[in-house]
């Protein structure tokens, strides 16, 4: 795992997979900031209880052991999210069927453990590949689909037929 340059020591939770998730997390964080600001304006007493957080923000704070009541942690989180949106590599990966949450979580965990810890995935749907996936990095495309595998093995059936024509069928 390689940390992203310019990171502030935070990590994305496994539930945050796509740039949309990051933007949603940022929006939640901004909403939290607004809520806390409103609460500060209404009362002079210190705020002891956070408003209810969203699932991803909750996961983000727990993953990074952040106290969202602290302005410093919120600022770090906001900076991290901004940096992530601006600099994190976004890989496009397409599957034949709709990927479940747990499945995408496992995939993104692999990327963050093996490629870069702030990798974001843009998940697409491409039924024609039948199985496997198609990964598109900034400059390359890696076709791990069953369609590609069959295309590479096009001559295998013909060779088999030529080699043992009487055994076929």
């Amino acid at each position, binding site marked *: 795992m390689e940390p992203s340059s310019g990171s502030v020591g935070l990590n994305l939770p496994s539930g945050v997979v796509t740039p949309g998730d990051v933007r949603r997390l940022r929006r939640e964080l901004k909403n939290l900031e607004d809520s806390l600001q409103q609460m500060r304006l209404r009362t002079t007493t210190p705020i002891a209880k956070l408003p209810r957080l969203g699932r991803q923000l909750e996961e983000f704070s727990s993953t990074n052991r952040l106290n969202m009541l602290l302005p410093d942690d919120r600022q770090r989180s906001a900076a991290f999210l901004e940096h992530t949106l601006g600099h994190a590599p976004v890989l496009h990966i397409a599957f034949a069927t709709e990927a479940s949450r747990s499945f995408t979580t496992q995939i993104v965990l692999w990327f963050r453990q093996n490629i870069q810890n702030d990798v974001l995935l843009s998940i697409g749907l491409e039924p024609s590949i*039948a199985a496997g996936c198609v990964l598109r990095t900034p400059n390359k495309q890696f076709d791990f689909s069953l369609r590609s595998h069959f295309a590479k093995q*096009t001559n295998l*059936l013909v060779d088999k037929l030529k080699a043992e024509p009487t055994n076929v069928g």
Partner: protein
Amino acid sequence: MTIWWLATIVGTLLAATLAFVWVAVRLGHGAATKGKPQPGEAGSFEKAAETDVEHIFNEQFREELKNRGRLHFEKIISENAMFLQQDLRLTTSQLNEYMKGEITKTLQDEFSKYEQSITDAKQLAIDALQKTNDVIDEQRQSLAGQLEQEVANEKAQLIAQFEKNMALVVNHYVLAAVGDQIDLTDQLEFILNDLETNKQAILEDIRHGA
């Protein structure tokens, strides 16, 4: 001896000649004396002659002569006609033979020429047909070669097309058949294996990417 005999013979011949001359003169003199009319009796002789002529060559005798002449003439004509007919038949026969021979000869010549012409024409036709057959054979062999080549090419193309299409059809069928049946969770291991295999390439692309 011989002279005597010769003189005897000559004397006999002279005697015979003198006797013959004398008899001839005697006979000629008597006839001339007897037939010569006397002067003053000429009219009576002519009259007598006319009478005798009329008496001898009367109408009946003339008629008889005419008949005889007619018969003789008819006989002569008949004989001549017969001879003419025979000659004509002979001539006709010869002419026929001649004509037959000439015509036969001419016909044989013409037939020979005609036969020769027919033979030449037949030979020409045979030569032309032979040439045509040769050309047709050459063209047939050429066409057969081309056809075999075309068939072989077509067969190769069809086989190649079949192989290509067969693989595509099988691929398409398998993809269509299993596309919806394989759960993504089941594919996770294979996908992660593929990602692990290409991990370095992915890393390199991200590092040196945009």
